[in-house]
């Protein structure tokens, strides 16, 4: 099979899986459902590997496959076409890889749910959308995937649809995503207007050419990139559009792992990296990205400290980590952003799956205050969770250390202040992550007797993915070993370098940093590791040694209260946007419509009024009628007399 068919297959197989399970989910036997659902992403993963091999052997040239025209009118042509290059391959590999693992996990996790087949079908549909997002060769195909993953997110968050609050969360996610999508599509419109196409490669060629009218800082490009970034804000949960992500934890845990941690939420980063040639042309946008990312990272991290719901903590940590990734992009360090995306996918998926395992064991108990001491009961979960926690906290040699460190280093290159803030966030991260870890796995069990009675390690289909992901969380960093440790060992940077050649050509000084000496780098690394370890120790003292159990969110005081209530952002949005719109809707629907209706009703009333008035003229008296004749005649004659002398 040639590459074109392979690429299409990689994309379509999950969709076929979706169709099979979706159309037959009530009739197919459960094992078959699981088999189909797992086999499809697995096949995609294998095809990805094949493609990877072919790509490498074929001289690493990017490949565009056009299958058909989608929308074609004379000045706008959009085709169904896929692009295979370094970026899509990397994304593909970990999306299909992690995706397969999570499918396996889900087969175990959701096995008893009555909507099992439906769930697996949705997951497959999500895989398809995500692949379309990654593989599309133009912004419109990406947009298909972009909206598709939003839909799947909606469907999966509200998977237990009997529960109205879950539905509300699903709707919130979809709507917030749509707000971002609107920005994105407006950006795409501008791309159409300025470049006449939406194909990445064509645009890249356009801006890379000598004739390119848009120089660095061109307002057109700045506008485009800002609009695109709005899309990224929605999808990747950046301030101010991040509030849906914590609520999205209403969905089943594998969903949180797959969609709301590992893959979908990183679409924004993918999109920015994909458009790097545009972003490099717009340093102003990059600064905006940086600021927003920084705010997001710190805000989410600080909120995470006071959350008691295991998934909520992880959710805020996701938001915060996404902030880190965008920070990397903000300083034009696209590779390190991607790097963190990958490592984050590993360890965050692991964390969520571990959390899922815990929740599974505790029968849907999610409050960490009611956990504790699970180490004895669930050893595999415990160990893998510890690995992931260490990874996210940036403790060497776990994967997170390498990627996060690279980002911090680039921040330092930009400005030491940024680095300080980054490290502060990192400290918070390790604190709340270990707070979570300690409260869950160490100490005494604080749940009910019944729960304790049922505690058990999860089955193999759940623990296997945990173990694989744990391995990846440990070793994942190897793809991007920094220069300091080994010369030319940063495979990722080397591999992705061709993606950024245009950017570097267009705006060289964006990439021209003062070179850091090795000693500085060591110091920076050391400090961040020390800070992380420090906060771990602090957490240990507080939650293990002192056996503190956090207060419920509602009883927090002072700053804690603000943080526990997530800075009241939801309330703020409610007051500023939701409630006024609802009130306005009621006003329009109930009062203003009546007013508008006056155009018609008023006319009717006038007609009726006049009709009544004229009716009164018809008095029934002959005398009056005769008068009318005479006076009418007199007026008419007099009128003509005046006009015609």
């Amino acid at each position, binding site marked *: 099979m040639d590459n074109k068919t392979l690429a299409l297959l990689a994309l379509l197989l999950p969709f076929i899986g979706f169709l099979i399970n979706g159309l037959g989910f009530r009739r197919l036997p459960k094992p078959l459902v699981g088999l189909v659902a797992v086999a499809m992403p697995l096949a995609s993963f294998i095809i990805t590997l094949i493609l990877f091999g072919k790509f490498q052997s074929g001289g690493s040239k990017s490949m565009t496959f056009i299958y058909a025209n989608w929308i074609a009118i004379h000045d706008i042509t959009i085709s169904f076409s896929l692009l295979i290059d370094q970026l899509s391959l990397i994304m593909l590999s970990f999306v299909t890889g992690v995706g397969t693992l999570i499918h396996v996990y889900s087969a175990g996790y959701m096995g008893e749910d009555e909507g099992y087949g439906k769930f697996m079908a949705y997951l497959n549909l999500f895989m398809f959308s995500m692949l379309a997002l990654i593989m599309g060769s133009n912004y419109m195909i990406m947009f298909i995937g972009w909206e598709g993953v939003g839909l799947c997110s909606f469907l999966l968050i509200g998977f237990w649809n009997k529960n109205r609050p879950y539905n509300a969360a699903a709707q919130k996610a979809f709507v917030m995503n749509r707000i971002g999508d609107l920005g994105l599509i407006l950006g795409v419109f501008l791309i159409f207007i300025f470049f006449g196409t939406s194909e990445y490669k064509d645009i890249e060629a356009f801006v890379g050419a000598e004739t390119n009218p848009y120089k660095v800082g061109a307002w057109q490009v700045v506008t485009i990139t800002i609009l695109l970034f709005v899309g990224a804000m929605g999808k990747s949960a950046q301030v101010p559009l991040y509030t849906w992500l914590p609520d999205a934890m209403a969905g089943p845990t594998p969903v949180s792992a797959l969609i709301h941690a590992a893959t979908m939420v990183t679409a924004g980063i993918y999109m920015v990296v994909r458009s790097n040639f545009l972003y490099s042309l717009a340093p102003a946008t990059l600064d905006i990205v940086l600021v927003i990312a920084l705010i997001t990272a710190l805000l989410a991290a600080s909120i995470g400290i006071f959350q008691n719901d295991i998934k909520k903590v992880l959710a805020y940590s996701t938001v915060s980590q996404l902030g880190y990734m965008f920070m990397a992009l903000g300083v034009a360090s696209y590779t390190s952003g991607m790097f963190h995306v990958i490592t984050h996918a590993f360890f965050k998926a692991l964390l969520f799956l571990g959390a899922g395992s815990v929740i599974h064991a505790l029968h849907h108990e999610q409050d960490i205050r009611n956990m504790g001491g699970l180490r004895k009961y669930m050893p595999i979960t415990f160990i893998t969770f510890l690995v992931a926690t260490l990874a996210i906290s940036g403790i060497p040699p776990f994967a997170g250390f390498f990627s996060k460190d690279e980002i911090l280093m680039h921040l330092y290159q930009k400005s030491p202040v940024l680095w300080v803030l980054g490290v502060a966030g990192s400290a918070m991260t390790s604190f709340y992550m270990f707070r979570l870890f300690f409260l869950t796995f160490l100490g005494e069990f604080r749940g009910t007797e019944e729960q304790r009675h049922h505690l058990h390690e999860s089955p193999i289909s759940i623990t296997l993915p945990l173990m694989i992901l744990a391995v990846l969380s440990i070793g994942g960093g190897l793809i991007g070993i920094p220069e300091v440790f080994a010369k030319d060992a940063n495979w990722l940077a080397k591999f992705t370098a061709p993606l950024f050649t245009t950017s570097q050509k267009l705006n060289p000084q964006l990439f021209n940093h003062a070179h850091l000496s090795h000693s500085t780098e060591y110091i920076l690394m050391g400090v961040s590791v020390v800070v992380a370890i420090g906060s771990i120790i602090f957490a240990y003292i507080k939650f293990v040694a002192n056996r503190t159990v956090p207060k419920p969110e509602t009883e927090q005081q002072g700053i804690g209260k603000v943080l526990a209530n997530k800075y009241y952002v939801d309330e703020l949005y409610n007051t500023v946007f939701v409630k006024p719109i609802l009130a306005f809707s009621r006003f329009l629907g109930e009062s203003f419509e009546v007013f508008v209706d006056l155009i018609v009703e008023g006319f009717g009333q006038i007609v009726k009024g006049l009709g009544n008035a004229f*009716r*009164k003229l*018809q*008095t*029934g*008296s*002959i*005398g009056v009628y*005769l*008068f009318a004749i*005479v006076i009418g005649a007199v007026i008419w004659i007099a009128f003509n007399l005046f006009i015609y002398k």
Partner: protein
Amino acid sequence: MPEIITKIPLEYYIILASILFCIGVIGVLTRKNALIIFMCVELMLNAVNMLFIAFSAYKGDAAGQVFVFFIMAVAAAEVAVGLAIIVMIYRNTRSVDIGQLNKIKY
């Protein structure tokens, strides 16, 4: 040729006829007795006759007089019908007051 047309201008006849006509109109408008109103209509018709005959005489054209003849005939027919209607109404309402004929209105 009648002597009068050399002495009296045609305009005098027109004015006379107009005055009579307007008196007839005033009568129609002021009175409430159906019969009187009808009589005033006859007065108007007579003014018209007057006018026709004057024109006929001053122009030396007999056609105008023929028209008057027709007007008289029609007037007679109208009177017959009109009086029949008045009588019919009187039978039912014992009144010739048109002021009472306002049951059909609006």
